[in-house]
Every structure is written in structure tokens, then in C-alpha cells.
């Protein structure tokens, strides 16, 4: 799990090439660690889901940061590839269950007690 998180020193430049461990249960969406963002503008053009924008941020060393619109993020991974500062990490969208799985926590518990 820790390895799946951006920020861990690893051999992987860009996207760690496996899903985060929680992806089996909840949808991964990208998030920017604002303290790491260097406002380089590389990631927004690589997002084809209207989910990445630059925003002014008073007090930030660069005055601006990349921001993920998580409701639009489809977890494709391209922003991780674009980032030279290792500023992205995966967070769980608890509102989204995998395709084929029950969609609410009630039904999840039900599913867990069934044998399939």
C-alpha cells in the first residue's frame, strides 16, 4: 500500500505501475500534495477528463497549485506520469464501488456474507 502511494522513493519515474491496494474496494482518484506541487503546468494538458486545473494559492511558494476536480477524475494515471515533483497520490472515492459490486455499504456487507 505504501509503495502504491506517490511520495515513496522508488525506481518508478512517474506512475507506479500498479493500482493502489484499496482499488479492489473503492475507486482511486488523484489528489495533489500541494506542498510538493511546483506549479509547472505539465499536468493539466495531459488530463482528458476536465479534472485538472491550476489554481491561485496565496501563501504557496509558487503562488499557484494544480488541483484535481475529483468528481471528474477517472483515475487514468496520466497526471502521475506528467509530474516531475512526485506530487500526486491516490485517494479513495468511497462513493464508488467496482463494476459488478454492490454500490452501497449495506449491500457490501450483504455481499461479504454471501459465498460468491
Amino acid at each position: 500500500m505504501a509503495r502504491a502511494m506517490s511520495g515513496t522513493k522508488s525506481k518508478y519515474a512517474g506512475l507506479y505501475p500498479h493500482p493502489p491496494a484499496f482499488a479492489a474496494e473503492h475507486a482511486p482518484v488523484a489528489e495533489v500534495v500541494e506542498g510538493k506541487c511546483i506549479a509547472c503546468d505539465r499536468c493539466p494538458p495531459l488530463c482528458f477528463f476536465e479534472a485538472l486545473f491550476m489554481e491561485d494559492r496565496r501563501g504557496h511558494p509558487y503562488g499557484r497549485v494544480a488541483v484535481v476536480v475529483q468528481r471528474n477524475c477517472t483515475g487514468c494515471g496520466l497526471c502521475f506520469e506528467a509530474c516531475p515533483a512526485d506530487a500526486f497520490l491516490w485517494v479513495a472515492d468511497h462513493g464508488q464501488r467496482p463494476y459488478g459490486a454492490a454500490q452501497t455499504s449495506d449491500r457490501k456487507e450483504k455481499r461479504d456474507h454471501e459465498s460468491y
Partner: protein
Amino acid sequence: MSLSTEFLGFSLQSPVMVASGPASHDVNQIRLAQEQRAGAVVLKTACSDKYAHMRYWPRPRYKLLDWDKQIAGRSKTFSLYSYEQGYSGRLEDYWEFIRASREHARIPIFGSIFADEARDWADLARRAEESGAEAVELDISSPHRPRSLEFETTFVAAIRAVVAAVHVPVLVKLAPSADLAHQCTVAEECGASALTLCNRIRGLDVDVEEQRPILHGYFAGIGGPWAKYSVMRHVAEAAQAVRIPISATGGVMSGEDVIKYILLGATTVQILSVIMVNGWDSIGRINREIEVYMERKGLATLAVIRGRALSRLIRPEEIIRYSGEGADGPRNVWNEE
């Protein structure tokens, strides 16, 4: 001098089209394509309900392998490895997507579909036509298609069924294979209006640290600038084998790449990964690069050079050859030290 290109009865403002995929899954992207003078847009592929699972995508699902990481539109090398599959909405959403795209587009909008049974192919094509698609591309060679579906057993019937079902032009998208030229001929015989060559191929990459396939753990589609040399060969072979027009696609990074495909007989050229990696401006840049070439060569239209390099493709027996041996003859004498 004009980039204007006649293709399937349309007068396209440029031979450069946006290929089906993530640069054509949102109606608002039509505006971006138009601003850059794209010739036409092939919308993201919609799958039949039987393949509803292909509307759902793993996370993450894109990796840029061997990427030079150049920014500001200057990247030249990469391999785009992905497993995104089909349009993410329901079929009803897709028909509305076509309608909305047509409503706002000044350039032709083509639908793209995938199914297995001929009846489903015909049904999707008919619905796409009714929704306003000005042509329909059959994505029979998707790198994500189920392995059980083969050209002869499934897709020949699909092409026939679609051609019988719709009035708009039908493009058949094929992937590199040993018998691709044969598939092109069969598609033409079945009534296809044009061929799209080539789809991305199915690839696989392995992570040596975790010792397992990367991303979702299964094969993926793979493409990139390197693909063009293989696709140029396939376009050349197809252009010799069929009379219907060819829409070439694969590895295009520059206007020069577009011109190469046209010199080999293609009428239009579809691009996508260059847009993803180098931005929407890539379409406009490629258009300008083509214009600079036309200016330099004194070309009024691209039609005058279509197939010119193909006509200069010679036979193996015509290749001028020389001896590979040195003056002392065969290299078969062991020299003692």
C-alpha cells in the same frame, strides 16, 4: 494551396482527423478539434450492451512507457500503453453524444461502434446513423476485443450487415496482422467505403520489481511514434490491394508523417496520441507543417501527390545490389595469428 481533402463525399478542411478515443469522448472536445482545423472527428467507440463491462475502466489504466518527458508540445518518443476500452455511458447517452456533437460541429462527425453478432453491429450502426453520425467506423480490430472474435468468423458478417443497414459511409478499422492485405480486400468486397489502418496492437509490459504485468494485470493496447513504420508498410500494401480510400493512423507526430502516409496512398490521416502527449495544438501545428511542405513543393492540393511514393515502391528483383564480399573473396579462410 489548400489542405482541403475529398473523402467519402465530404470536403474536409484538412486530411488530419481526430481518431476515436479520449480526445473524442466529450462533446466539448469537438470545439477544440475545430479550432485547430481538424478535418473530422471519429467519436469514442460505443460497445453493444453485451459488452457493457467495457464501459468500465480500471484505475490506473494509462502508462507512458519510454517517454522522453519533453513538455510544451515537444515530446518525440513514447509508447502509450492503455486499457481504457469503450465509451463510458449507456448507448442512449452515446446517441445523444452524437446528436450534440453534430449540433455543434462544423466538421463531419463519425460514430464508432463495437459488437459481436452481425445483428448487434447493424443495430448500433443504424442507431448511430439515425443520431446523425455522418459515417460509421467499425472498430473490429480493437486491441481490447475478446480473443474469440476473429475476422473471418465474426467480422466479415458484421461488415456485410452494417453495409446493408445504413446509407452513410462505413469505415472498417483494421489492425496489423500477417493477412491484413487480405482483410482489406475482403472488407472492400463486403462493401466497406474506406479502411482505417491501423489500430493499435495488443501489448504487454511487466514490472520486474513486483514480477507481474503492469497496471490492471492484463494485456493492453500499445502504440506510439514507432508504430508508423509498420503502419506505412501496411498502408502501402493495402493501397496496392484495394480501390477504396484509406484513412491512415499510427504514430503520427508531424506534418511530415501525414505527408508520408499520403505519399503511400492514404487519403486522410487520423491522430490521437500526439494530441494526448503534446496537446490539442498538435493538430494546428501538423496542419501548418503540411502547408509549409505544400508551399515548398508548389502543390495546389495533396491529391496530386497521393500515392506518389507508392508508385515508386519497387519489386525485390529490381533492387540494385552489389557484392558483399571483399576483394579477396568469401570470408571463409581462418587466419592463423
